[in-house]
């Protein structure tokens, strides 16, 4: 048997609906026989009548509705059709869900699924990685699963968490990533994972960039250079300890993210490592992100806009030379 990242997301939701009658799914086109723009809810409306509901094109109200339902004890999962459209719901996510516990002592257990990241030909409005907007504000847990196993267990955990979770699933991984089976358990939420051990350089990354980074690590291994790759799994909370421990072993840090370059997860990792582990560093920490322009449509441009094994390798090589 083989299961994709996308199927894992579907299976997690099936399990959640099966095991917990507080769970329902709300989003555009998730219901009927259709099962969502990416089929992440395929078959679920039929299997769980009345619990997988099509929403109007009203992202603000979709999240508002979920917040209300959560207040009433439900565990809603909101599917954005593309992460990019969550800009319309951002106010409800940041200012309503994100502040509610602080204000009232009552947490809001909603999970907002954001089909994120680039695929070729998707252009400026269907390719965005928005984790850094959500992580910047207080009150949210922001997940960025990079593997089939994490896609599955972390989504289950997301719904179990009493606080609002922004779950960034990567569209490129939907079909490209396969596993043999679904795990029964994952690492605890908030723990980063050493995806590959190494001693010469630490790459800290998450989501689709994990795989580009692992490719680079394999390539370098042929030359006897061992890159340690840390998969953050959640960018908030961010597991500074695991990152620091890795940098302590390697002395070198490269952060890789697919989102825009100003601020965001890679800058945050560097700020933490340099604050707490300055003496551990043998060279200047580096980062690589997408370019500071909207995400281009054409594959030629798109593949140059985001980091790739090639550009990561280049940076890594420079870093190892220092």
């Amino acid at each position, binding site marked *: 048997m083989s299961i994709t990242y996308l199927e894992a997301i579907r299976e997690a939701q099936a399990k959640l609906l099966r095991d917990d009658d507080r769970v*329902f799914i709300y989003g555009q086109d998730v219901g009927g026989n259709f099962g969502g723009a990416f089929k992440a809810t395929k078959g679920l409306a039929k299997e769980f009548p*009345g619990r997988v509901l099509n*929403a*109007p094109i*009203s*992202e*603000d*109200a*979709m*999240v*508002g*509705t*979920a*917040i*209300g*339902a*959560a*207040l*009433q*004890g*439900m565990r*809603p999962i909101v599917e954005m059709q593309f992460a990019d459209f969550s800009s319309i719901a951002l*106010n*409800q996510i940041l*200012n*309503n869900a*994100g*502040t*509610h*516990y*602080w*204000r*009232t*002592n*009552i*947490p809001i257990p909603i999970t907002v699924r954001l089909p994120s990241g680039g695929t070729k030909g998707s252009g400026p409005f269907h390719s965005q990685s928005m984790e850094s907007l959500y992580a910047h504000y*207080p*009150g*949210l*847990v922001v997940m960025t699963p990079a593997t089939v196993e994490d896609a599955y267990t972390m989504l289950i955990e997301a719904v179990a*968490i*009493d*606080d609002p979770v922004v779950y960034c699933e990567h569209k490129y991984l939907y079909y490209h990533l396969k596993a043999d089976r679904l795990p029964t358990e994952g690492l*605890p*939420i*908030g723990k980063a994972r050493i995806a590959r051990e190494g001693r010469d350089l630490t790459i800290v990354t998450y989501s689709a960039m994990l795989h580009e980074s692992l490719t680079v690590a394999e390539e370098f291994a042929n030359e006897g250079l061992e890159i340690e790759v840390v998969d953050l799994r959640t960018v*908030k*909370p*961010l597991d*500074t300890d695991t990152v620091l421990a890795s940098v302590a072993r390697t002395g070198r840090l490269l952060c890789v993210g697919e989102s825009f370059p100003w601020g965001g997860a890679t800058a945050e990792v560097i700020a*933490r490592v340099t*604050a*707490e582990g300055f003496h551990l560093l043998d060279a200047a920490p580096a980062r690589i992100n997408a370019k500071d322009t909207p995400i281009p449509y054409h594959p030629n441009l798109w593949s140059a806009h985001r980091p790739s094994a090639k550009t990561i390798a280049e940076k890594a090589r420079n870093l190892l030379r220092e």
Partner: protein
Amino acid sequence: MLQAAQRSEKKTKGKKTAPHERYLEAYRWMLQTRVFEDKLASLYRGGLITGGVYVGRGQEAISAACGMFLQKGDIFAPLIRDQAGRSAFGEPLIDVARTYLGSRQGPMRGRDGNIHRGKPGQGQLAMISHLGAMISVTVGVLLAKKFKGETGFVGLTTIGEGGMQSGATHEGMNIAAVEQVPLVLVATNNHYAYSTPNDREFACTDLVDRAKGYGFEGYTVDGTDLAACLDVIGGAVKRARAGRPPQLVVASVLRLAGHGEHDDASYITDEIKREPFAQDCLKCAEKVIVDLNLADAETLKKWRDEAAAEVENAVATAQKEAAPEAGEEDWCAISMRHLVDQIP
């Protein structure tokens, strides 16, 4: 006799008189609110309240009516000018005093202030500032109740004519109708959004004309007339409870105060102050009570004194209470402690 509501879209026959008891009860909430908010305003002027004070002067009738028909299990999501409704719904004055005065013991524990308060566990949602955002949240609560098989409940939420223009209001209203939840939306056109008059806010003849476009049932009411407010809002709540489509009630009044107590409202024109909707609903209700002899002068005075005493009591209590201290504060934006991000 008590004047009945005017209904714009549907003409219904029904009782034209609210029961006197209900009228008097509502009046007492109005009165208490007026006394309380006058006190808050004076505390503000005296520099004893930090931030702003926002009162519902002139809107007490409509607001009281909003609270009067809600029962246990119902949801109330009030906004800025809803003290009377909040009180009628069951919010103790001490909660308000504590929130305004920043007492650690208030429902918001000094973390949020003034009108930004609620007890969601008891059905009173805590508004965020962004106007319109609470409508879909109310819909969500009602939807969840439906999921759980509860019946006979309603949710009532309020908005100003200004807030009606936000995208969130539109999306929330539409979803309410799609999901056919028992929502009552009471929109009070007090003719200004802060300093902005109606003609820079919307261009339809009457905001109640929005109802049909969502599949709501729409009604208008003279917000200066308590009996009409009770009649129309009572009717809307009843219909929502009975499973009719979501209800929109558009009330007409004039805001008889500044936007907040910092605002002298000098932009409010003399002309508009002479409009019938500019009457003070509290005085109108008092006149009805006196004219119809629903309560004697002594009773009225007793009520006023009682309100004053309650208000003084709440304020005095809250004023004695400790303010929150940064050192003792639990600086955690999420409830699950092991997931708190440890930012160096």
